[in-house]
């Protein structure tokens, strides 16, 4: 479609993935992962896979964030490695 927008979305996707890997605060990492999921959903919608984008937006950006934070609340908030 608009290749500049697609390139910008893809850049944000890669940056948010790297940020999610590098962060030591796990709740911030979950937020970065939600950004990653949302960018992936937007990219999939632009490529015409609306069904997959729908699932990615509902599950990746919605439910998994809550589930990850629920899991982090049971352990240490900061990564130690």
């Amino acid at each position, binding site marked *: 479609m608009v290749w500049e927008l697609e390139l910008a979305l893809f850049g944000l996707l890669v940056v948010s993935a790297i940020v999610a890997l590098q962060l030591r605060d796990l709740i911030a990492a979950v937020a970065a992962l939600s950004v990653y999921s949302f960018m992936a959903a937007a990219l999939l919608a632009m490529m015409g896979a*609306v*069904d997959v*984008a*729908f*699932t990615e937006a*509902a*599950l990746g950006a*919605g*439910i998994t964030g*809550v*589930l990850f*934070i*629920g*899991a982090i*609340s*049971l352990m240490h908030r900061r990564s130690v490695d």
Partner: protein
Amino acid sequence: MTEQHDSIILNFVVRVLLVPFIFVFGVYVLVHGEASPGGGFQAGAIVAAGLVLARLTTGSEHGERRISTRVLLWLASAGIGIYVLAGIVPLLAGVNFLDYAALPVEWFNAVAGHERTNRAMGIFIVEVGIFIGVFSVLVILYDHLTERFTDD
């Protein structure tokens, strides 16, 4: 994340404005899943997100939940049961597993007042099963993550 927030604005916005809209949108995605993007899995994820949102604002330590984890477990089993039944009934009629054309659902056309083929009805029944299963399992996951390890 499991205590109640006594903010009237938060309660009103989430429980009166947001969650009913999310539920209606989820059911819309479910019933339009054959013709447009959507379907049982996406609708289940959306409705589960609405239920989890309601649970995040009301908290779990004050009072009983409207839909308890035990009921959700039954619902999840019922969802799988609907799917399996839609597969077994054609098998008993003598055709292949999940061959929707053999499902005895012609009576529904008279009830609904418009014609749908058996195949469309079969797909819809399976999607309802997936919908119930997915939303129950996702909310059960949330319930088990936030409970404070009290054996019941």
